[in-house]
């Protein structure tokens, strides 16, 4: 075990733990934001630079500070390391500029974007961004394209975090999509207009931090904050079958994998679970999903007035969970 101090809070972690994961053990303000890092995707992280932190002391052995800010998502802690996150003005200033960079080409179309309410960039900009734009240039534009039967790509919104290509590499059988071109001209694209069709392709949508990869079955059908997320599962031979059903009234609007407080999926789901079971009777509904407290999704739900659960659902919920459900506001 090695000792690390982040924003004045000391803790012990196993050797090899990254600064990001050490900070996540503590939680709260000492956790740096992450736009590209994704725990379960190998090789993720390091790219967006949202998680840069200051290492005020390298280690107990070599107390020199690190000359530059480091990416906390891929820098392992050393024994005696002292890290500054929200207590460093330099880190906070850099974070503001990273938001600014990410928004140079990102359209501010949140009002019509399907990801609104679940967008990591929206949250990141809300917490760390400036209130006005300093770049008065035309943002880059692309026509949305259907990549296969399930997914629509809005390249205009992509922030090139590479998560979806990592999903394609690591979860799907045949990778047909990746990054084309270079620099600002880079595009997520499929191999010569190929369709993305494989059992796990839907996970690309879940890992996309912004509204660049959208679910063709769900897009424009509802705003997420009008929906009631329910944990549910079914027996599935391809994946864990553990999902979230997004309900409005009795209708299942969409099915997604379960995300944790850092917006990450641990159990990726197959396309069958995602797109072939839109009836609640196909599922064992476990109960309402706990969504992190600051999410807009919580703003309009979990109150008696707005939640209308279909009758048959009451029977599936056990009472203890239902009590908890009522208590949340």
């Amino acid at each position, binding site marked *: 075990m090695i000792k690390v101090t982040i924003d004045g809070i000391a803790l012990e972690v196993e050797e090899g733990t990254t600064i990001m994961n050490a900070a996540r053990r503590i939680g709260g303000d000492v956790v740096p934001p992450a736009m590209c890092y994704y725990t379960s995707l190998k090789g993720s992280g390091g790219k967006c630079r949202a998680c840069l932190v200051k290492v005020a002391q390298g280690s107990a052995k070599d107390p020199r500070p690190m000359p530059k800010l480091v990416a906390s998502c891929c820098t392992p802690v050393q024994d005696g390391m002292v890290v500054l996150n929200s207590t460093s003005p330099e880190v906070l200033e850099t974070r503001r*500029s990273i938001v600014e960079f990410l928004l140079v080409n990102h359209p501010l179309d949140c009002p019509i974007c399907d990801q609104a309410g679940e967008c990591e960039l929206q949250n990141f900009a809300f917490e760390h961004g400036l209130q006005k734009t300093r770049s008065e240039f035309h943002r880059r534009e692309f026509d949305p394209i259907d990549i296969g039967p399930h997914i629509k790509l809005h390249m205009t919104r992509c922030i090139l975090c590479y998560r979806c290509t990592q999903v394609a590499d690591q979860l799907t059988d045949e990778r047909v999509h990746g990054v084309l*071109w270079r*620099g*600002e001209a880079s595009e997520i694209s499929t191999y010569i207009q190929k369709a993305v069709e494989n059992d796990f392709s839907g996970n690309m949508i879940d890992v996309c931090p912004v509204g660049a990869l959208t679910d063709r079955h769900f897009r424009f059908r509802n705003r997420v904050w009008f929906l009631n997320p329910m944990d549910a599962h079914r027996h599935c031979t391809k994946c864990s079958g553990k999902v979230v059903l997004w309900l409005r009234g009795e209708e299942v609007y969409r099915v997604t994998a379960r995300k944790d407080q850092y917006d990450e999926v641990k159990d990726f789901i197959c396309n069958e679970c995602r797109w072939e079971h839109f009836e609640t009777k196909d599922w064992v509904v476990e109960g309402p999903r706990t969504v992190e407290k600051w999410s807009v999704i919580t703003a309009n739900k979990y109150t008696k007035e707005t939640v209308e659960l279909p009758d048959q659902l009451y029977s599936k919920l056990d009472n203890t969970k239902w009590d908890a459900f009522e208590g949340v506001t």
Partner: protein
Amino acid sequence: MSMKILLDKVGVAGIETLPVYRAHGGYSAVEKVLKMAPADVVEEVKKSGLRGRGGAGFPTGMKWSFIDKKSGRPRYLVVNADESEPGTFKDRYLMEKMPHLLIEGIVASSYALEANLSFIYVRGEFRWIIAILEKAIAEAKEAGLVGKNIMGSGYNLEIVVQTGAGAYICGEETALIESLEGKRGNPRLKPPFPAVSGLYGNPTVVNNVESIAAVPWIVNNSGESYAKIGTPKSAGTKLISACGNINYPGVYEIELGLPVEEFIFSPSYCGGIKDGKRLKAVVAGGSSVPILPAGLILKTANGEPRLMSYESLSDGGFLTGTMLGSGGFIVYDEDQCIVRNTWNFTRFYHHESCGQCSPCREGTGWMERILHNIEYGHGKLSDIDLLWDVQRKIEGNTICPLGDAAAWPVAAAIRHFRDEFEWHVREPKECLVRNYGLPEATVATV
């Protein structure tokens, strides 16, 4: 005249062929190293004080000593012949004129690193050089100087020439390794450094062509002798590719420590400014290093003559100094517009950014657009401050040094030539240089 160790045989008829090269003492370094212990060769290079000639100037011997020998995994030497920095064209000259010198250097260096496979990663546009190198390797192989059981020593080495596709970023060592592996040329995060986990995850040394080509001389004449050439902190000779508004553009081998003034004005080198014009500014080490106005490139801030060496060029840090970089020496006369030049450089970095990390991907484009506006008379005074702010936020926050390379020229141009930027955005929104001539203070005649 400075001493020459890399280009001294250039001009000898047929020196690019093996018989002539050998007749002039070629491959004696290979003969010599094969009788030495590899560690002793590394030691010799360490003693020479040779610093990498690819841009960063990291001591070559020290880099070699970092290579992980304990892992028992295959080791590789990769020669970086991507040469893409604007203003830099020395490696291609060296390879074209002295292909066997590079190959001799590769054999000696690979032996020192105990590598049995070495790659030359050549910029794909250098088609004729690829042919020259392949021919030279075939000749050397035929003569038993490359391949199995070199000179009967039991040491084996294969050399593979690999062509790049003309991406600047593939010159960055980890992007180069990715590219060699057949992938998109995106830089890797460091650590791990290539010396521990490089090509195919094995210990790898990436060195510039010129660094490797200096090894035969060091082996033949000893590290101490090499260290005596140049200055105490900048040992040896260096190839400089000189271009811009000078009388004699070309590739020169200089002894490090040569006064900049002599390099620019002596008829043995650049031969002074073209058409009798005055010197305005110099980019001393390839497009990514800070530009310096005439006054500061000829003399340091303390008024001492500026020398062509790592330490003298960087004297004063980034406030009043620059870097030796890759040795691309670009000279500007009084008629050159710094705003346009900065825009041009930024356009290059914008185009060449790999696009992995957001400050570089978005920041280079942002700077390019601001500069374009200023250059074309649509800028505002506040744009100059914005530009300053954007470059500052790219620098140091990216995965690889391309972000810094894009930021430094912009920072230096604003620092030293802010008046020109202001002139462009104020009435009459015209280029100061094109229309009004420069104030005396910013140019120098010698």
